[in-house]
């Protein structure tokens, strides 16, 4: 029942061109982005740690730290780390591309969060496998709100 209603709302929105105007992201959008990253593969849970404060006062500048357990050698290293936010109008946040010369797979940056949501990190290893980690946080003041 709920699915039907959701489908209806989505299609009605798309028909009137509302979805492109509304700055609303959906979990489905994020899943689509992740599917594109993974291709035919599946991401195992683990090895990736995503550190974001559980309570964020201002979504405009949120410090995020992502790290992946990896020896970072020529044969076994992290090739890429993708950050995907489920509640942002555009799920893609940032993608990092690493090489063994990075020494370790740990990166800190500052991102925007438009809502309380789940942020996911997908790491692509040199052997072709994917690993993922996630963080859930509450955002009191969303970004994209101020004029």
């Amino acid at each position, binding site marked *: 029942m709920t699915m039907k209603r959701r489908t209806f709302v989505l299609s009605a929105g798309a028909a009137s061109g509302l979805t492109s105007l509304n700055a609303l992201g959906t979990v489905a959008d994020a899943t689509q982005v992740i599917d594109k990253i993974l291709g035919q593969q599946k991401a195992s849970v683990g090895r990736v740690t995503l550190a974001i404060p559980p309570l964020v006062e201002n979504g405009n500048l949120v410090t995020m730290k992502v790290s992946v357990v990896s020896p970072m050698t020529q044969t076994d290293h992290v090739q890429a780390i993708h950050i995907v936010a489920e509640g942002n109008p555009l799920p893609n946040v*940032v*993608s990092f591309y690493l090489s063994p010369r990075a020494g370790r797979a740990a990166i800190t940056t500052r991102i*925007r969060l438009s809502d309380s949501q789940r942020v996911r990190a997908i790491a692509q290893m040199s052997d072709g496998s994917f690993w993922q980690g996630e963080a859930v946080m509450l955002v009191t003041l969303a970004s*994209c709100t101020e*004029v």
Partner: protein
Amino acid sequence: MSKTSRTLVTMPTSAKKGDMVEIRIIVQHDMETGFRHTETGQRVPRDIIRDFRCTYNGVEVFRAELHPAMGANPMIIFSTVATESGTLEFKWSGDNGYASSITSKLAVT
């Protein structure tokens, strides 16, 4: 936003061979998301930095693809292994022909 802006790199000037060097970069940029509207209801067009690259003596060691969800004045802290003395070059490029770069020397003992 101008086509170039101030950049800042914080990293050690010397390191032992094989050591991890932590690099902290900040670039001045509004990172206009394209999701905001003015008081009259007009959409503010997207204007962001899209790409960041770090090369170590000409070899790419780190690259990042940025999206509107990166905070204003993008800051990234990453690391590289000190292999040889030389120059690290940091380059940003983005919408409306934005481009900036900075170099930093590293002496490896």
